[in-house]
């Protein structure tokens, strides 16, 4: 699943219910994290739902590798979008990348609000921090 595909699908769905249906379908395509990796140290704090996130570097390709899962369908779908957006980027490219602009263009900006119930911003911040560390 690539970001062009995601953008196309979301732009073709009208109304919030249709958008959320697509988002949940994106989530279904994301492989489920093995139970052994669903550990407290991988949890992103600041999320109302549980989000496990691993960010690593493929040394040979110098590309970020992201693995993530959530116990909610909608957040898992949003994770699929975030992972597609960062996939194949070098840590430097990821540091420059604005997930905010992406979510704005997808019409999903409300999900990046810093409100208590929403941890998407926390996830993006975490990825940026790890990308900076790996850069």
């Amino acid at each position, binding site marked *: 699943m690539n970001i062009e595909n995601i953008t196309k699908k979301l732009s073709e769905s009208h109304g919030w219910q249709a958008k959320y249906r697509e988002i949940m379908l994106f989530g279904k395509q994301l492989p489920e994290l093995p139970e052994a990796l669903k550990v407290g140290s991988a949890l992103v704090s600041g999320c*109302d739902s549980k989000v496990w996130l691993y960010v690593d570097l493929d040394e040979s390709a110098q590309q970020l590798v992201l693995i993530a899962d959530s*116990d909610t369908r909608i957040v898992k779908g949003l994770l699929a979008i975030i992972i597609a957006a960062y996939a194949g980027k070098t840590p430097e490219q990821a540091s420059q990348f604005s997930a905010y602009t992406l979510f704005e263009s997808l019409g999903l900006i409300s999900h990046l609000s810093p409100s208590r119930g929403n941890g998407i911003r926390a996830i993006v911040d975490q990825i940026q921090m790890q990308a900076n560390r790996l850069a």
Partner: protein
Amino acid sequence: MTDIHSLRDDFPILDKSLNGQPLCYLDSAATAQKPNKVIDVIKTFYQAENSNVHRGLHTLSKNATNRYEAARETIAKFLNVSAKEIVWTSGATESLNFLAHGLSQALNENSKIAISPFEHHANIVPWQEACKRTGAQLLVLPMLENGVLDEAGAISLLQTHKPDILSIGHVSNALGNIHPIESLIKACKTLGTKTVIDGAQSFMHLRPDLVALDCDFYVFSAHKALGPTGVGGLYGRYNLLNTLPVYKTGGEMIQEVTFAHSTYRDAPGKFEPGTPNISGVIGLAAAVDYLNNISPSALQRYERALYQSLLQQLNQIKGVTVYGDTQNNVGIVSFNYKNEHHYDLATLLNTYGVAVRSGHHCAQPLMNMLNVNGTVRASLAFYNNEADVEHFINALKATIELLD
């Protein structure tokens, strides 16, 4: 007395549409909506009456002071207590912190504090901290398997341990259960246990008579009872209240200050340093005036009928689990659907204009005991109607279709 059905028109926000959907507000347990009368009183105060209280000799200040102290009379009358027994705070959370601070001064490592398993974090953490400071032990009353307080077990636990303090919510914010506090308070009387009632969720729905209840302390928040945010208070039986140590210090609460020593006024003055939330207090009084125009029995009858209708329609949806006491309830349904996450349900309900709360409702220990990580909570007030219930049920059915 007013017809309950027509009261909805007094709440301007209920006419709003969001994202092209009419608002279906079912989150009154988080905060109640405000009637025009409350909004107007606050607006007029700042436009024409704003002044500090207890300080000036000028007319505005005298008028503001009169309104501010009249508000104390209004709340006291509503709760059937004396005005000097009402202390203003920023809300129920601050009231509980104040009481945990004050009442724990007399505790030591032999002391015990009892709470219920249904408590909001605001009625757990201040007592935990009090236990840390004093070495006292925190006891938790037992719960039945169906999410209802075990009344007999609770009384027997109180009799066995004879705790110094019982602090319990009148109504569970997460489930809506009305707890049998009358019998618990009665048992505490014979044991010398001081009773603190968290009235945040009962103040508006049940309008408790504190003389009949006979509790020692009762805390409340204005915003859960049609009033503004950031203000609330507590009732304290005067002889107990006046012996509590000061909590916050500053101007206005003193009798005399020298660099060596200060003496304080009597309660409630000694607990209210600094400039208070004047417009908030006046707004709360307007909210109580508004409630005073509604017959309490008619209000409760209306809310109960609406709750029964909501509950019955919800129970007809296969896969829905409702938690808590569905017999004695102020009008809250706390539920899950199959294994779906409450976050997904609430997010999708929002796309239909339905405002509900999802999560642990600041009651994580209760959620653990119910073996869930959270629920969806729809909470009613008298300004809701059958159309809201229908809107919610239709939105829930559509949401389920989207998920199944």
